[in-house]
């Protein structure tokens, strides 16, 4: 639900201010995490560029960081500082405040002025941020995945606390927030997929059968269906919110780095190490190769235009962004040559 450009959390805050939290709850449940999908019109593409091929720490060619580009264009402009090795990005937008976040080697970067200026929110104790997930309602709450665990701030980055109660091994690749409940999150960890239902205080293994978990996704129209993937064991799937898991067909030993679906969930994509682009039309139960991605060793990121599910973008391991306008039948370069692109999003 979205009224005149103000998102559901935005309306929640307005109602809180007008009528107090109790009445606001009657209109909207503040635990709901899912922000309204952005309108494609007027939005821009954001790309997290991790590194430029051939660059080395301390001898960098620079040029990596957060890039912005117009839709259907190959021109990209860096809006972060150079030398910002960027693993991911995120948006907080409650209708009044818009904040961009970068998950980067130097920490969590935040911009409150549309990318004109950035502040690093983390200290040296919370670096190499692989994934950043801001709470969609409370801007002072942010979760991050790092090689040394899940960290959370409740004071807008002033302090960070490690939240690993129940997760035995410390490398966390990704965090996913359940669109139905912002206190429920999933962590892609070394030994399994883990779930918390109390905003990170306790985690339970979900028994996915995976190790070295790299990618997670919930179906947009049916969040009880979840996909997970990692090193060597293909894709695992649950349709009952994690009670039982089964192997997806057609991807027995694929190494999958990323998932993406169309807005309606009818088309789901996955990609990883030497997989090309994989597609599924049954919510991830079975997979086929959509595009072999010749000459591209790995695909790190995927994007499906919300208003045009035929329009796909893939972020590669060193060849920038490739684009297809016809469901992946034909492809062309969409810019950022020579880069490793870790995430692509469409943000206002």
């Amino acid at each position, binding site marked *: 639900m979205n009224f005149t450009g103000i998102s559901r959390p935005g309306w929640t805050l307005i109602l809180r201010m007008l009528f107090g939290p109790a009445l606001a709850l009657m209109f909207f449940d503040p635990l709901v995490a899912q922000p309204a999908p952005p309108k494609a019109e007027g939005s821009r593409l954001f790309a997290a560029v991790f590194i430029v091929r051939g660059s080395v720490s301390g001898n960098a060619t620079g040029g990596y960081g957060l890039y912005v580009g117009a839709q259907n264009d190959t021109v990209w402009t860096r809006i972060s500082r150079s030398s910002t*090795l960027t*693993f991911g990005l995120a948006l907080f937008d409650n209708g009044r405040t818009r904040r961009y976040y970068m998950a980067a*080697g130097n920490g969590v970067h935040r911009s409150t002025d549309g990318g004109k*200026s950035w502040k690093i929110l983390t*200290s*040296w104790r919370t670096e190499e941020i692989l994934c950043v997930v801001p709470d969609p309602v409370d801007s002072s709450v942010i979760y991050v995945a790092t090689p040394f665990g899940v960290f959370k701030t409740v004071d807008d980055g002033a302090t960070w606390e490690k939240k690993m109660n129940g997760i035995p091994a*410390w*490398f966390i690749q990704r965090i996913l927030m359940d669109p139905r409940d912002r206190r429920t999150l999933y962590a892609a960890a070394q030994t399994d997929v883990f779930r918390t239902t109390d905003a990170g205080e306790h985690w339970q293994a979900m028994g996915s059968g995976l190790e070295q978990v790299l990618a997670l996704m919930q179906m947009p129209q049916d969040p009880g269906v979840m996909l997970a993937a990692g090193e060597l064991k293909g894709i695992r799937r649950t349709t009952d919110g994690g009670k039982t898991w089964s192997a997806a067909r057609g991807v027995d030993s694929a190494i999958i780095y990323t998932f993406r679906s169309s807005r309606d969930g009818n088309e789901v994509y996955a990609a990883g190490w*030497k997989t090309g682009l994989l597609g599924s039309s049954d919510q991830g139960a079975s997979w086929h190769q959509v595009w072999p991605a010749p000459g591209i060793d790995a695909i790190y990121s995927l994007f499906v235009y919300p208003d045009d599910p035929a329009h796909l973008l893939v972020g590669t*391991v060193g060849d920038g962004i490739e684009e297809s306008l016809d469901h992946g039948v034909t492809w062309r370069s969409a810019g950022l040559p020579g880069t490793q692109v870790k995430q692509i999003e469409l943000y206002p």
Partner: protein
Amino acid sequence: MNRNRVILPALAATLLGLPVSAGGASGTAADARSNVSRAEYLRGYQQRAQVIASYYDTSMAGDYYCAAARYASGKDIRTADSMFVAALKRPGGDMFWMFSCIGAYLNGKDRMSPETKAAVRNAWKTYAPYRGDTENHWAMYYSSLFLASEQWPGLPGSEWYNGKSSEENRADAKDYLIHWMEIATTIGQGEFDTPHYFTEYAVSMSLLADFAKDPDMKQRGKMMLDYLLVDFADEQLDGQYLGGYSRIYQPEVYMPITCPASAFAWLYFGTGEPVVSYWVLLPAIGEYRLPQIIHRIATDRSRSYVERERKRVRNVIRFGKEKNPPVYKYTYVTKEYGIGSLQGGLLQPIQQHTWGIQYTYGRPFTTIFGLHPYWSSYELGMFFPEEIKPLIADVVGSKGTYNNPDKWTGGSPFERTFQYRNTLIVLYDIEPGTMTEHIDGFFPRNLQERVADSSGWVFCKAGDTYIGWYPLQAGVWTQEADNWRFRSNHLRNGEVVEVRSKSEIGSFEKFCGALRLRRPGAELEPGNVAVEYTTLGGDRMNFRFPGRRTLNGKNVDLTKTPLFDGPFLHAAVGSQKLSITYGKEKLNLDFKQLTITE
């Protein structure tokens, strides 16, 4: 030639007024003796520092070092300003930029023009350096950031590249540096004993010691520089770092004297070759002076000794049960050679040097060593956060030898060592299907003797150092540009290495004759790789892969290895205290109390 490293021949050094000893190795300074007086040492040190400073304060290379040297000497400040401002127009190099920039600024802030000062300040607002991904990067990054934040206090985040205020930056940098010092002095340094990256730590601590306004941080900088230098001093011979290292590159690994750390050996100890390098410029124009006791330890090789040390693996992020597992280092040091080893296994990614013999003969090829050339995405995944499979290509982009089966650097999960004094046993149990199924040995071509004896031993002579190498399996010799390569294509494999000097055993013939009487007994079956050997000294060593070691029937427990244990250095794990002794002289570094007592 690298413009940043100039080797001064003995004649040139003499013409520059640099005292050179007649009896030592080429270039060794006259004060490279343990019994020199403090005044003699300081005179020699000052002359060496002056050689370095005068090279840079006349150089027109136009970098931060040329500017820093001119500011320090007071020569030609206008040129220094113009060099500095020009360099600031194209900042790059991340943390390497940070320390050179702040180093030049701190040496010149009282002499440079207001415009130059403004340009420096602006650079710290507009250029955003990356903090890096290794501990040497972080030492440079945070020490530089700490010093910069002290220079410009009270500024809001909008005046800094990272959006943090001066106070936030100072607090963050100080917190990291104290953390690093604590962990290094409790469970050991992570990037330990690296002939290549020693410099990054030493320069960072030198800047703190010279310029920190915070008296605690100034004291910490001085103490850590003492700590780093004495760690180097007692495993140093003729300017070379001895034994196993956490990180080294090719070709440095087979030319140890060419490593950047050797420039520090020459400046502070007077040993090795005269080297002018930008790495030692900032220390050379600084105020820090090496305690005399460390100089004595670096230069006294009148008696052979064993040095045992505990270090730690750098942060393990995947596949590990422990974030920083221990590293056990064992080094035997004499006046002619050193032989040293780490326990083996994967202790550092990419550039580990597990064991080697270094000696004083035949610069620059002064080493014999062996390895199993190993690489894998598993190894890289242990230490780097990126997705594992693409990592090899990323690493090869900057460290081109990583996936070369002929490479001369790197650790292997299938290699283990057992050393007692100057005898070393190395065993390999290589998993079938591993990228390389061979082991290699490096033997310089400039050896005086290299004889594959019918007894099975390979006898080598390097000046007054004799090396015996007993391969447990057959191999093939190949002549290469600078060396002979001994390659053995057997999965269960190993070697026994004995080293003696002329002063220890007499003639080379006697050494060979004694070894001919000794044959290691080996079991080389799958899952059962072991050696039994009685050393030239009569000690019985039994070693079963991967970690069962007995000496004269008694179990050798590496886990009991102290942080430092040798004739000069003593530190218990967890103590944060290092006791340095030389005869009746003592120096105690107490990092809990931040005190130096003599």
